[in-house]
């Protein structure tokens, strides 16, 4: 049982990092980035071409942040004035482009990535032994979620991002150049997805469609947590991660454990249409 809960938390870590980026981007830009899964996948593939895992951990998020900012400046920012349908078309189109570029370069088979040296053994927690790498993933995710929480709730940048997310027009009228923060926030969201990709590489198959599988669950997570609610997304990610691990371990039917996430989502939406931690959108 403890083993499954632990694995669920580790699975939830990837969901949390990707969902966090998605939620921050949605909050600030009102753009649902369907390409977020592909960016996670790019993170894993970029890790393959880095000299070591540790370099990848630092460089890949930076590269993807820069790439994300360029993408925002050139394409994504145009969505603001367009019908939401274009949001879907653009970010989904980008997903296909990223996937095909990777298929073209690396092929469709999965590429193994070695567990980084120093994290190959296991960690002894008394009654249980957990693989060191998984403990590392969980610790990193916890650290980053805490860091993002701190940044948002305790710093001036966070204050501005929160205000701009909630009431962009008013915040602008109070003298804050909201537009200036949009591009860095988009880059930051991409960096989080990329980091999740790097962390996933040694544990999961590095494959062009790895992001496509993850992102669907992440969307369910974000909806359950409440669209735009940062705290809600992270909490929902870990809960869903654990539920998935437990259902895979204890339910005989693979089908049920696959659709479990969506069942939870449906129940939550019926009970609280704006998600567990979401606020009702103000009518204005």
């Amino acid at each position, binding site marked *: 049982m403890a083993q499954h809960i632990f694995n669920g938390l580790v699975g939830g870590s990837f969901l949390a990092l990707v969902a966090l980026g998605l939620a921050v981007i949605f909050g600030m830009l009102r753009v649902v980035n369907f390409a977020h899964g592909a960016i996670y996948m790019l993170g894993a593939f970029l890790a393959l071409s880095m000299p070591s895992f540790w370099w990848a951990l630092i460089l890949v998020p930076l590269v993807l942040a820069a790439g994300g900012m360029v993408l925002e400046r050139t394409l994504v920012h145009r969505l603001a004035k367009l019908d939401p349908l274009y949001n879907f078309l653009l970010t989904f189109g980008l997903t296909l482009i990223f996937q095909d570029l990777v298929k073209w370069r690396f092929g469709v088979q999965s590429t193994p990535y070695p567990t980084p040296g120093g994290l190959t053994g296991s960690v002894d927690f008394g009654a249980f032994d957990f693989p060191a790498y998984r403990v590392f993933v969980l610790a990193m995710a916890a650290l980053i979620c805490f860091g993002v929480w701190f940044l948002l709730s305790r710093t001036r940048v966070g204050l501005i991002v*929160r205000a701009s997310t*909630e009431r962009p*027009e008013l*915040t602008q*009228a*109070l003298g804050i150049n909201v537009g200036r923060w949009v591009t860095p926030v988009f880059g930051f969201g991409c960096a989080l997805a990329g980091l999740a990709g790097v962390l996933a590489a040694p544990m999961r198959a590095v494959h062009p469609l790895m992001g496509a599988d993850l992102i669907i669950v992440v969307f369910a997570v974000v909806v359950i947590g409440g669209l735009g609610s940062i705290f809600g997304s992270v909490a929902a990610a870990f809960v869903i991660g654990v539920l998935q691990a437990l259902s895979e371990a204890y339910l005989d039917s693979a089908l049920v454990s696959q659709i479990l996430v969506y069942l939870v989502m449906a129940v939550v939406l019926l009970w609280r249409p704006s998600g567990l931690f979401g606020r009702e959108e103000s009518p204005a």
Partner: protein
Amino acid sequence: MLDIENLSASYGEAQVLRGVSMSAGKGEVVTLCGRNGAGKTTLLRCVMGLLPYTGRVSLDGNDLARKASYQRARLGVGWVPDDRGTYATLTVAESLSLRVSKDGWPLQRVYDAFPNLYARRASAATKLSGGEQQMLALARVLRMGSRLMLCDEPTEGLSPLLVEQVGAILRQAKEHGVTVLLVEQNLHFAATVADKYYLLAEGEVRPTTPDDKELLTYLGV
């Protein structure tokens, strides 16, 4: 100080303002009256740079046409919106520190003037009462040290005591050379602060006085 010349604005097909011209001098309180839906809020939003318009809005002779609303705010335009613009994700203290200027009120002065805000400084701004939210919206602009305050019905929903306090603050601001464009339905209150009056009707603005018979019948007082 503030000059509005021939300003027109519309929402899609519906033209709300048709060639509005008015002005407010330094340290003047100018009251804008008009029936519901006349376009008073629309006019303030144009001045703030939140709505596209044709015509000219200038501050001390400088045309604001190419200025985004955050730039207008930095040039000294402060907005007290009609819906109070309360943030749910910010505490009272955070709302008061969003943007501050050295010309603005120090935090302590705000708290001395509004003890309610001090008492609730750590709560989410939306947990304040309606009147307290109104005080917060006003205090936010005082913190920014705005030279021009656009106040959209700042006394709405306030008890007489607070209305008197808002009046005192506007008079104080005025003494410091701050210009106030005040949208106000309460003519009794307006009379305690205003230097001049405009009536907005049928998309046009004309000067008026609080004892103007036509104005009073028009507003149904």
